[in-house]
């Protein structure tokens, strides 16, 4: 009973309320039912840019990060590595750092004039890059930041999957004379599928809601080159104070999320997850 009450107040009410809000022109005081927000959504160049940027990060950054995570996990699992505990902690550490603090650090090291990154590039004879004031480089910084923060976390999850693979399959493969490479691609990867799939799903949803890095490192800039659905929603809701439109964006993102997860289930199959 108390659970039901909490559910109604903190879950059902906001859902219904924001659906109602999305049909309200919040530029006019008082509620008036109309569909302006929804028609605006599909012709709004800012929304389309935010959508494009978000999908771009999803398609490029997520696979790269997961490949990196698998590599890290295999390295952490190898018998030759000493001080495993330390490395595991080190890879997990970025998650413990406050988001605001790490965003500020990224801003500093990618500063055009004084940043460590450009100093390093200059030292090996490469010209400075205007990281945060150019659309392409700014997007690259965002992707690097997210990868730095989340690759280790995914590696730890995949490592758990690795450790649940029994030694006997590897022994059998060795007896059959399979090479290390063959073993990895024919045995390790297929058996890791459930773990990787899990990481993929959470990363995709994380990307759909991406807010912190573009908000704090680049402020969605330059222009709107790194604006994501999350930052645009915030901008509309809390800066322009257009709650109706912000609700429509939020529902747009939710529908997109539903579509993406349906595709994932169809394509990747949920048979062994």
């Amino acid at each position, binding site marked *: 009973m108390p659970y039901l009450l909490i559910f109604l107040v903190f879950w059902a009410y906001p859902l219904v309320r924001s659906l109602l809000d999305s049909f309200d022109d919040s*530029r006019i005081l008082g509620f008036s039912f109309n569909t*302006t927000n929804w028609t605006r959504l599909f012709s709004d160049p*800012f929304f389309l840019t935010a959508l494009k940027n978000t999908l771009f990060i999803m398609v490029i950054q997520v696979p790269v990060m997961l490949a990196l995570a698998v590599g890290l996990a295999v390295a952490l699992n190898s018998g030759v590595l000493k001080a495993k505990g330390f490395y595991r902690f080190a890879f997990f550490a970025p998650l413990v750092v406050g988001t605001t603090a790490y965003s500020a650090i990224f801003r500093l090291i990618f500063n055009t004039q004084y940043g460590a990154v450009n100093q390093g590039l200059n030292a090996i004879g490469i010209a400075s890059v*205007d990281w945060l*004031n150019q659309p392409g480089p700014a997007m690259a910084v965002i992707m690097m930041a997210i990868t730095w923060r989340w690759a280790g976390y995914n590696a730890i999850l995949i490592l758990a999957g690795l450790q649940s693979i029994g030694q006997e399959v590897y022994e059998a493969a060795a007896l059959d004379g399979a090479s290390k490479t063959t073993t990895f691609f024919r045995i390790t990867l297929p058996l890791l599928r459930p773990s990787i799939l899990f990481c993929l799903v959470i990363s995709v949803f994380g990307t759909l809601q991406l807010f912190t890095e573009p908000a704090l490192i680049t402020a969605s800039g*330059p222009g709107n080159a790194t604006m994501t659905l999350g930052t645009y929603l915030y901008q509309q809701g809390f800066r*322009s104070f*257009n709650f109706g439109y912000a609700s429509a964006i939020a529902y747009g993102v939710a529908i997109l999320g539903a579509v993406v997860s349906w595709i994932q289930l169809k394509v990747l199959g949920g048979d062994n997850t």
Partner: protein
Amino acid sequence: MKNIALLGLTLIAGSTLAAPKGEITIWSWDVAAKALEATVPSFNKLYPDVKVKIVDLGNQNVYDRGLAGCAAGGADLPDVYSVENGEAEVFWARFPDCFTDLTTLGASKYIKSFPAFKWTELSVGNKRYAMPWDSGPVVMFYRRDLYKQAGISPTSIKTWDDFIKAGQKVNAKFGGKVKMGVIGNGSDDEWFRMLANQNGCFYFDNDAKEVTINQAGCVDALNTVKKLMDAKLLSVGDWGGQITAFKKGDTATSMFGAWYEGTIRSNAPELSGKWGVYPMPAAKKGGVRAANLGGSALALPASSKNKEAAYAFIEHALATNEGQIAMLKQYGLVPSLLSAAKDPYVAQGQKYWGNQKVWKTILDTLGDVPAARGTQFFQEARQIMVVTQADFISGKFKTAREALDSAAKQISAATGLPVAK
């Protein structure tokens, strides 16, 4: 009996004349916060029992948290709230009950004390939701020594074309190490706004009924910004980057609202005597050499527990020469209080500026500033224009007109206001 009557009298008198006391919290940003701090000593002479706490949240944060507080029915708001004139109207339009109508506290007597254009964005009908504070007449702050080395005389710069010629001299002299200014391209559209306002053009018309951003004056402004960028006269930097640039001597000029005087002076005291001021160049010979950027006001949230003390503070800081001149002296905020402009201090030469009478130069432009109105959609229009300007400069549009037509269409969709014919 007599005693009781007396007691009654003192009680009545006490309730109306008791000096305000207690603590008040004030939200502000950067130099504006420091300037308010400068009025506290004289305020406490009059009201010793009020403890003033000034919080510097940074400009964008004050705005964001103010809106959030209003949306939450006045929760977590300070007693005195700083708001930029240009972005003020969204508050009164969406949250008519969030702030106190200052006329209920006696602000009516100050209506004639400020220029009418300062009240426009702060009033709804007969209600006055905030008291005017400073204005931002735009001028060029320049480095005398760097101009001299490059062989430029500031009096020869009368138009933007002259400015570009001067900039080419600076580039030739310093090999591109020193620029003619810093622009927040990609994070702000401040140059566009200053130049558009100079040409009598803005995002919206002054009745806040139509989108006017694609009219001739704005097209000319955007073209000039691109010319300056193409000639490689400006470096790109946000607020903090601009401060670093003038501190390090990487820029020979800073164009901004006059309140930037305090930002330069308090951040680079070591450059005293090396700076000067001249009016902004005109679009064409003999044209307007004035514009306004920014300028703020103080409002009193309706949720304040200590309105009396809060109003006393606002009144002292903004409606007395003492308060306004204290802020001008220490942090260069240009008073919009009419009587303060006549204060002897304004006519004095300023040591930091090489003994130039900078305040006279600056205040003399005030009469030429074309009126412009932020409206409740200022932030939305600005976000669209920031992107449009960056896109135009990177070559995504063929002409400035095309870029501004696209911006006008987007602003119209975002605000529901028609594009002016």
